[in-house]
């Protein structure tokens, strides 16, 4: 399904796209292909949604504040409450997880006052118990994610 070029592009460039005037040309040279081949392959991978984008990941809590929130929601109200939560623009990554705390989402705001205000409002709107789980330490050394193409 993937060409060997696709596989290299997916696995080997998650961390460092060159910070040079011509990054795609640099990648092309390192792989022994043309810049055009690189651009075409990236476009195709992006069109097919195998890659979300070529972009940056910003360290948490340097710009604005964020926290993980867990909510314990009665099963029969889950869809409804998830919809209510999704309506807040501060919400990201809203997932159901199989646990007594079954709704998990990330809140992002400009400052902690706004974050607290959103949480208070959510508690009022839903009547559900919430856990406030801000990040204290990030241990992850980001080396990208190795995709196994063998099956």
């Amino acid at each position, binding site marked *: 399904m993937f060409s060997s070029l696709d596989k290299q592009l997916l696995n080997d460039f998650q961390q460092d796209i060159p910070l040079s005037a011509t990054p795609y040309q640099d990648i092309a040279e390192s792989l022994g292909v043309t810049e055009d081949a690189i651009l075409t392959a990236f476009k195709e991978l992006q069109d097919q949604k195998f890659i979300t984008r070529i972009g940056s990941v910003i360290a948490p809590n340097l710009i604005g504040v964020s926290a993980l929130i867990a909510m314990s929601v009665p099963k029969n109200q889950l869809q409804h409450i998830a919809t209510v939560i999704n309506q807040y623009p501060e919400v990201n990554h809203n997932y159901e997880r199989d646990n007594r705390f079954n709704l998990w989402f*990330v809140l992002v705001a400009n400052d902690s006052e706004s974050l607290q205000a959103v949480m208070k409002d959510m508690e009022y709107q839903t009547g559900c118990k919430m856990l406030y789980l801000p990040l204290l330490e990030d241990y992850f050394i980001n080396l990208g994610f190795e995709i196994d193409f063998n*099956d």
Partner: protein
Amino acid sequence: MIDDINRLLIEQLQQGLPLVSRPYAEIGKKLNLSEAEVLKRLAKLKQLGVIKRLGVVVNHRRLGYKANAMVVFDVNDGLISQIGGHISQFDFVNLCYQRPRQGELWPYNLYCMIHGKNKKAVLKQLEYLIEMCGLRQCKNEVLFSKQCFKQRGALYQVSSKQQIVMSNG
């Protein structure tokens, strides 16, 4: 460190590096910055750790990694940095954070995320992780994701119109 120009620059970058020969020049055009200035600023932001990485952002689900578990552990506070550092080194782990315990209700202080092609694969990797990191005695819970209600890669609102992608909260 993060002046207004850097904010705008990060906003632009979050929309994706353009797929053209001179992508940084193209970003610069929108902000009235030279290509050299864009490169200089981005290198600095990366060096300072504001930009954790700049590269291909893959879509795990689309690539066949359908199972995703958040695993929470209750580990000794004095050992948490060491254990967190150890956990982070496994290639199937893609996030590892310390968060505050919430008393009896939620006594966990260490969180990690494991992606796998299916639940069985994830549990096998977790078993290996527990063995290798000496976590057998630590209380844990495994929370597989079920429905996804919203996923937009943790966006941070910097202005009324544009947003920034951050790592996971």
